[in-house]
């Protein structure tokens, strides 16, 4: 057999590799950008949020244990249940599944790290700071209290004058940045950094699941970002998007929220399903049955999930025909889920199952999730849902699918992958107790809620009257909740004990088949493996030793810095060498600045908020300045007879595609604002409404022409890279064009009064979003000129130009769409 690299390896290769990947010591470890550290920190904070929100749940259960209880007053209870839901959904559920992917995916794909390590670090610190500050609002009694779903008009300024709603809108809103950043990492990482030979058809199912999830995040999260922005603008500036008296519509929020909210629950479930697909083959000691069917099923769930959001609005008074379609789609999503369930059982059937800690939690998952999925099919039947919607029956359903469908697989995963941390396993003996307490406690807590809901107990009530038959079920639920909590507590005791044990040689304790179980050091694996099957460690038992000896690809470092390979999206053929950024404080500073800006703005400490924002921008600029360097050599040797280009330019660059993903997110946010405009327009009898008017045609035409000119100018920069003067002149021209295009748009809308009616407000929202982009273009254009003037913009290093150009063309197209929709929609509608 021939290997990419022959032995013996040069003596300085290994120390040089180790030095490149060395992490800082002590407190300086906070400047790390390696996925193994960031991943663990991320998982840690997410589990902290789980416990914190769980304590809030115990408070709720104590209040509801008895009728007419006075442990928590109404006001406090409403904050507690709002925080419980908000923290669990936004600060635990999505972060924990993203965090696990940050930790696990590179190893599972045969890459040394994620493609944008500093972006991961930024995302983590933003999330870490933001979530802890947000949770602390409960200690000051200023938490949001309008429910995790924050329906206006209750959460508008009139009925929620305090800062609670603003904490939610700004605090949670900016944490979405972390989720979007994670999605970019996942898409680029899964498609472009897999080990050579790991075709899409040989990729672990978990990677498929995360790829689907990443695309779902890209299309779902923008709706909540847009919605939160609109509600905050309404609260801050009185732009009446959701105020019926001025042409707004409370249901507009519901559409935006649930267009995000339904895919969100599959964003939470699919990673867990992917983990189940990884663990079942290990406990059954046979490959997954129906790999291709499961992949198609994952994609199917991803697609279908975007068609279901209206089933959260079954009682809002929308039309019967639309409800029928939604019922059908809501049932249809059970089909790809069923495919996965049968594939898993078939795998267990085929293999010989050993009941260990992992298997126990997987069995718990099956029981609880299938039960929850079946109540889900029940509530898809719209007439039945009209009885159980907004009752404890739904509370039962959602906890069965979320705790069953995500928490139990995650716990199974923690038992399974714990040896990756310091070589030690969690206790098998304690696992039986943890499982028993959690499984028993969960069912005792939540099954009775099906009954109390059917007996007439609504959701979100701080108390209930005696004599309705609710006392027994509530008391039983409370007891179950504490049993569940005891199990969780025992689990964390075991985690602490295990993490405090000394580092061990890890080996492959579960005899797992995938590459995250290869031997690793601070540089991840010694060499990047050639992969030929879905179960590399089963089909190729010598692989660990070969990789460790440095026989596979890139056993050292060509530049003295951190490196991994870029491979083609489908076939995973080697394309080029990727140089990764080193550890840095800048992502942390930028994250702290971003967090400071949003959180301080919430309490209206504007001067410090702006200072933080500027600090963040400065940190980002400094961080970017260190990137986009020319290759240190033209070709780097990664094997005896194989050299590859270093880095890539233009559309072959991974940064280019990262930007493309970001622009898809951007476009989806804009589409959500556009949807708001169309929605309120459709509510009007006359469009524009009385008192409002469209611009004189000269201004939109002028704006369109200037936008186009700006794009042309920036596109020409590519051809004049040699001349700094030409680059500067063209960039400046483009900036002037973009700025004056926006000015023309604003002059045309000179008489716009956003507070007068929702139609005007939605136009103002779209204009504001366009203005934000123009401001961004001015910053990026300036940066480009400085970069060029310093001689760093060259034919062999122009990612700065490429990303700026992409954003420029996007802004032009967005601007043209704004002009089109504002000026032509009334004509189409009348």
């Amino acid at each position, binding site marked *: 057999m021939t290997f990419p690299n022959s032995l013996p390896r040069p003596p300085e290769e290994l120390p040089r590799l180790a030095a490149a990947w060395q992490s800082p010591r002590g407190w300086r470890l906070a400047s790390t950008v390696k996925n193994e550290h960031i991943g663990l920190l991320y998982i840690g904070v997410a589990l902290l949020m789980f416990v914190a929100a769980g304590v809030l749940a115990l408070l709720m259960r104590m209040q509801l244990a008895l009728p007419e209880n006075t442990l928590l007053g109404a006001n406090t209870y409403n904050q507690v249940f709002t925080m419980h839901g908000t923290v669990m959904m936004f600060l635990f559920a999505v972060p924990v599944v993203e965090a696990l992917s940050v930790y696990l995916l590179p190893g599972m794909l045969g890459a040394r790290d994620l493609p944008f390590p500093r972006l991961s670090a930024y995302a983590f610190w933003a999330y870490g700071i933001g979530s802890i500050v947000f949770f602390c609002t409960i200690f000051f009694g200023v938490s949001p209290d309008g429910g995790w779903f924050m329906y206006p008009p209750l959460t508008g300024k009139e009925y929620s004058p305090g800062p609670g709603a603003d904490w939610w809108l700004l605090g949670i809103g900016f944490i979405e940045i972390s989720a979007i950043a994670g999605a970019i990492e996942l898409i680029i990482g899964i498609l472009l950094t897999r080990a050579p030979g790991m075709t899409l058809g040989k990729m672990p199912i978990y990677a498929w699941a995360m790829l689907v999830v990443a695309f779902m995040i890209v299309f779902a999260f923008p709706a909540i970002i847009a919605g939160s922005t609109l509600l905050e603008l309404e609260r801050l500036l009185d732009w009446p998007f959701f105020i019926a008296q001025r042409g707004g519509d409370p249901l507009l929020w519901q559409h935006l929220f649930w267009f995000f909210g339904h895919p969100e629950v599959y964003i939470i479930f699919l990673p867990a399903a992917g983990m189940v697909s990884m663990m079942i083959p290990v406990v059954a000691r046979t490959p997954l*049955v129906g790999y291709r069917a499961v992949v198609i099923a994952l994609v199917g769930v991803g697609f279908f999930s975007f068609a279901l959001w209206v089933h959260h609005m079954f*009682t809002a*008074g929308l039309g019967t025909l639309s409800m029928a379609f939604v019922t059908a789609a809501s049932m249809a999503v059970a089909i790809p889920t069923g495919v996965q*369930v049968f594939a898993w059982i078939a795998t*267990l059937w*085929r293999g010989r199952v050993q009941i260990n800690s992992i298997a126990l939690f997987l069995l718990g998952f099956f029981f609880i999730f299938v039960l929850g999925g079946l109540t889900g099919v029940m509530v898809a039947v719209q007439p039945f849902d009209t009885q159980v919607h*907004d009752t404890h029956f739904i509370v039962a359903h959602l906890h069965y699918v979320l705790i069953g469908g995500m928490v139990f697989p995650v716990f199974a995963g923690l038992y399974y992958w714990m040896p990756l941390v310091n070589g030690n396993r969690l206790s098998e003996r304690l696992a039986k107790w943890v499982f028993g307490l959690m499984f028993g406690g969960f069912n005792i807590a939540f099954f009775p809620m099906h009954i109390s809901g059917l007996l007439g107990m*609504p959701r979100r009530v701080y108390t209930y009257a005696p004599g*309705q038959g609710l006392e027994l079920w509530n008391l039983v639920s409370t007891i179950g909740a504490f049993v569940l909590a005891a199990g969780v507590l025992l689990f964390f005791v075991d985690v602490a004990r295990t993490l405090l044990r000394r580092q061990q040689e890890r080996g492959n304790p579960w005899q797992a088949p995938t590459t995250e179980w290869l031997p690793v050091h601070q540089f991840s694996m010694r060499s990047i493996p050639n992969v030929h099957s879905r179960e590399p460690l089963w089909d190729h038992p010598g692989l660990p030793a070969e990789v460790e000896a440095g026989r596979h690809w890139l056993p050292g470092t060509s530049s003295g810095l951190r490196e991994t390979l870029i491979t083609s999206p489908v076939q995973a053929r080697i394309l080029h060498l990727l140089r990764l950024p080193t550890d840095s404080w800048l992502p942390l500073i930028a994250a702290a600045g971003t967090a400071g800006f949003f959180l301080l703005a919430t309490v209206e400490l504007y001067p410090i908020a702006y200072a933080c924002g500027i600090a963040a921008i400065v940190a980002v600029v400094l961080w970017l300045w260190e990137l986009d360097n020319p290759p240190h050599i033209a070709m780097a040797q990664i094997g005896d007879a194989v050299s590859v280009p270093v880095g890539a330019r233009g559309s072959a660059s991974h940064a280019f595609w990262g930007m493309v993903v970001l622009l898809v997110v951007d476009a989806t946010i804009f589409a959500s604002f556009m949807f708001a405009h169309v929605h309120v327009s459709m509510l009007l009898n006359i469009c524009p409404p009385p008192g409002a008017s469209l611009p004189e045609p000269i201004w939109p035409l002028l704006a369109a022409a200037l936008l186009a000119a700006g794009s042309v100018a920036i596109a020409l920069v590519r051809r004049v890279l040699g001349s700094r003067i030409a680059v500067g002149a063209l960039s400046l021209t483009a900036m002037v064009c973009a700025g004056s295009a926006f000015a023309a748009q604003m002059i045309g809308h000179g008489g716009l009064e956003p507070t007068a009616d929702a139609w005007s407000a939605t136009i103002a929202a779209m204009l504001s979003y366009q203005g934000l982009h123009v401001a961004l273009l001015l910053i990026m254009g300036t940066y480009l000129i400085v970069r060029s003037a310093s001689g760093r913009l060259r034919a062999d290093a122009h990612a700065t130009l490429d990303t700026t150009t992409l954003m420029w063309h996007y802004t032009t197209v967005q601007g043209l769409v704004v002009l089109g929709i504002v000026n032509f929609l009334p004509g189409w509608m009348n």
Partner: protein
Amino acid sequence: MNASVLAPAGPFAAWIAEAGWLLFAAGALIFVFVMVLLALALRRGAGPVRHGLWIVGGGLVFPVVVLSALLAYSLSLSVRLTQPPPADAIVVGITGHMWWWEVRYRDPAGGRDIVLANELRLPLGRKVVLGLSSADVIHSLWVPALAGKVDLVPGRVNHLVIAADTVGIYRGPCAEFCGEQHARMELVVVAQPEAEFDSWLAAQAMPAAAPAEALQARGRAAFIDQRCVACHTVRESSGVRLGAIVAPAPAAVAPGRATLDPSATLGPDLTHVGSRLTLGAGTLPNNRGTLVAWISDVQHFKRGARMPSFDSLDPATLQALAAYLESLK
């Protein structure tokens, strides 16, 4: 008072309850089937599986067949439940407030609105169309014993057709979180034989009874003096409304006392408050003692309610007020 989905007292709730039992039975069967498969999978040793049987048979064919049948059933049930109401249906307007229900009947004799609060009465066997709107935030009307719920959304008028076929009193808790006292916003629904309903409605259409005793008269005077009229309307005879939108000639009104303030719809109409089963939208039963307690300390029972606690009133005045309100049957 009944509030159970599984103890229906009307045709719509009965169809949904029937569907519920069917769904439960089918769900339980499928659940047991999957768990049995799982158990068997664990007991077996290693052995081959028929890929097509599991993935296509179990994963595709089985759900498609079951769900198609379920979809057909669901659609037929929806059609039955959304039949247009008959021409002789009674129409009632319900407006949700934080945290009480404004209820308006149409007087069959005069065609005027009969305004009451927090209680809805239905004649047995007749369909009632509820027109639902909201004065502030989103609420949801839910009477589990009689029908599914429909939301009250500001800016929209939704409709719910209900009917009862069993005499009884049914709870209607608000089912959309609407702020601090969402838990204490219950509509009381009473189903009675048609003759009793007709006489009840006729009584509600009548103006408020004039005070018959001195205590009640003192209560009426206190009702005006304490500015209860600023928020609550009591519709008296000769067209006079205490706290009315409609302004009769000022001379007909107690000099300088009664308000003609149009905002007197801030709180529930009290013209026949004595006839209601509860106070505070289901918070307390309705009797002389609870009236005193409610007026003097409403914030204790329903903190955050828009009505302040009149805790500085002396016991005699409170007794008088309670006597007056109790007499408004």
